[in-house]
């Protein structure tokens, strides 16, 4: 059974199922009871499960995250969230030096089954320090898995899968998707980590996207269809480990690819995927791989600049047409 549910509510449901079924699961983050911070994604959970398992924190990102990492080492299944990925930088030592390397450094004796949830919250003239979506930084780190759900169904399924994964998972959700609804199965299910999903089949062009850009890619595909361009949309779902097999199978068919991820280009996930595509298809491609990423600048505040800064459906359409013109 499934029903229409919003992305934000789907996250809430996944948290609820995890807390219900897994006595070792707990949830902590700034503003856990406050819609300003996390929308409805944690609403009601503290009432339902009590303040011992669902709690707010002092403004101490590093200590809070470290405490959760350590709790996971000791066998708990914590979810720690950061209302903005910008604030999560304060925890990078705990995440990179400690969490990510622990299992390896101690010869597989101590694993870290934690979910670190980072929320992308941008736009609205917030400026450079309240807008970031640094996917590549986390994907760059061995030992971390990174998931970026684009649909309500996967927002729920990936959160549940992340919680049951024995290793640290960075779960990145995007506030621009919170009100987007789709069919979400009831009850417990998992979206497999490391597996992309073909959301739309097509034969002329592949658009490979993650997170919010998947929604834009679908809209772009609809418009391109009107112009007779048959577009396949690949939702990466996980950006580390990335599912190059699904990407390359799609490109094998279409021989043209646009990669759309709203992150900075240099050293990005998008650039790494492009490399993976070239390696496999350098002889067959009809055109160079085209990337749709953020401009190489911090996020501006003014709406006039924000409009130029954030890529969307139109940016993807332009990139697609550029790719198609190679014939």
């Amino acid at each position, binding site marked *: 059974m499934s029903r229409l549910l919003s992305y934000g509510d789907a996250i809430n449901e996944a948290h609820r199922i995890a807390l219900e079924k897994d006595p070792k699961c707990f949830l902590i983050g700034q503003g856990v*009871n406050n819609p*300003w911070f996390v929308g409805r994604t944690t609403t009601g959970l503290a009432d339902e499960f009590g303040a011992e398992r669902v709690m707010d924190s*002092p403004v101490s990102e590093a*200590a809070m995250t470290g405490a959760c990492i350590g709790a996971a080492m000791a066998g708990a299944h914590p979810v720690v969230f950061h209302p903005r990925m910008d604030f999560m930088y304060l925890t990078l030592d705990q995440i990179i030096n400690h969490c990510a390397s622990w299992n390896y450094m101690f010869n597989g004796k101590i694993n870290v089954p934690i979910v670190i949830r980072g929320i992308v919250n941008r736009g609205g*003239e917030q400026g*450079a320090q309240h807008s970031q979506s640094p996917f590549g930084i986390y994907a760059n780190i061995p030992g971390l898995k990174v998931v970026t759900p684009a649909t309500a169904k996967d927002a729920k399924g990936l959160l549940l899968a992340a919680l049951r994964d024995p290793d640290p998972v960075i779960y990145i959700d995007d506030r621009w998707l919170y009100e987007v609804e789709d069919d979400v199965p009831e009850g417990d299910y998992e979206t497999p980590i490391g597996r992309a999903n073909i959301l739309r089949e097509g034969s002329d062009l592949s658009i490979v996207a993650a997170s919010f850009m998947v929604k834009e890619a679908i809209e772009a595909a609809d418009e391109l269809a009107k112009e007779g361009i048959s577009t396949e949309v690949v939702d990466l779902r996980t950006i580390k480990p990335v599912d190059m097999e699904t990407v390359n199978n799609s490109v094998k068919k279409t021989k043209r690819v646009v990669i759309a991820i709203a992150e900075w280009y240099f050293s990005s996930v998008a650039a790494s995927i492009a490399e993976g595509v070239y390696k496999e298809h350098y002889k067959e491609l009809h055109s160079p791989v085209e990337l749709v990423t953020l401009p190489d600048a911090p996020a501006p505040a003014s709406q006039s600049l924000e409009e130029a800064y954030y890529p969307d459906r139109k940016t993807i359409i332009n990139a697609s047409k550029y790719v198609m013109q190679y014939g």
Partner: protein
Amino acid sequence: MVQFTVPELPVLENKKGIKKETILSMLERMLLIRLTEQRIAKRVEEKKVFTPCHLYIGQEADAVGVCFALRDTDYVFSTHRSHGHFLAKGGDVNELFAEIYCRETGCSGGRGGSMHLCDPSVGLLGSSSIVAGTVGIGLGPAFKSKIFHEDNISCIFHGDCVPEEGIWHESLNFAAVKKLPVLYICENNLYAASAALKDRRVNDNIYEVARAHGLHTEIVDGNDLFAVNSAAMDAVERLRNGEGPQYIETRTYRWLGHVGNRDDIDVGLRSREELDYWKRRDPIANLENKLKGEGTVSEKELEMIHKKIQEKVDIAEDKALKDPKPSPDTLLRHVYSKEVMPV
């Protein structure tokens, strides 16, 4: 929990014998902040301002009392709640309104928005919307002064949740060990976003922890202009004498909610009684009453001042609204000081 209690009303004792002229300049500056913030709150409510504004109403005596103890050449760092600090240090109200409307003529060219103000010409080297961000970089100008034997000091304004971040402790210890001329101003308004102080700390003792790190510390009524100003003057004197970092905690309150024009009472974050209590402790009205009562100023003089400042605010806003927004062509400008080839 509460160890420090403020008197029913600000005492406002002019212990340092500040002259009328200076008192009136300070009053005008507080009013400029108040009327500016009230105008912005109105525009937020009307949905004409979009950049998230953390308004300073209620805390005016802190920024003004401190900045009037500083020289133009001293440095200041501010937070997400930056408008008051900007104006108090001498930032131009036209440039503030232009930044709030995200115009090209704003102090940050419309790239920063409400939380990211600067005016290097008056020593404001920036405000950061990352909690505790400036307790690190704010050491910098003081560090430079120390190394190059200059006498500028660095003043870091921060909120009451900043001591919850690790870098606060590092910063205080670094400043203490290196004997840096840093003045920390902790504006303790009892809340951090939606969380009350008592839910975030076991003890109401920020200034004592600062003292334990080796700083000279004071705690004052932040709604009492004279108390703040006098504590800041003493601290600045000690700083210029090379006595090492100084810490002042002010006890104050923001009338509006964390962000925007609402008061957060509707969402149950704080009580009407508490807000009313702090409104009676209005740093501006109490000062005006006192000045009138003792005959320092007349009702008429005060009216003129209000009118003058209101006009200044009106003009600044009108001007900002006519100014252009930054052109999308300039998106990549200022990523570096000199243009760099795009990647």
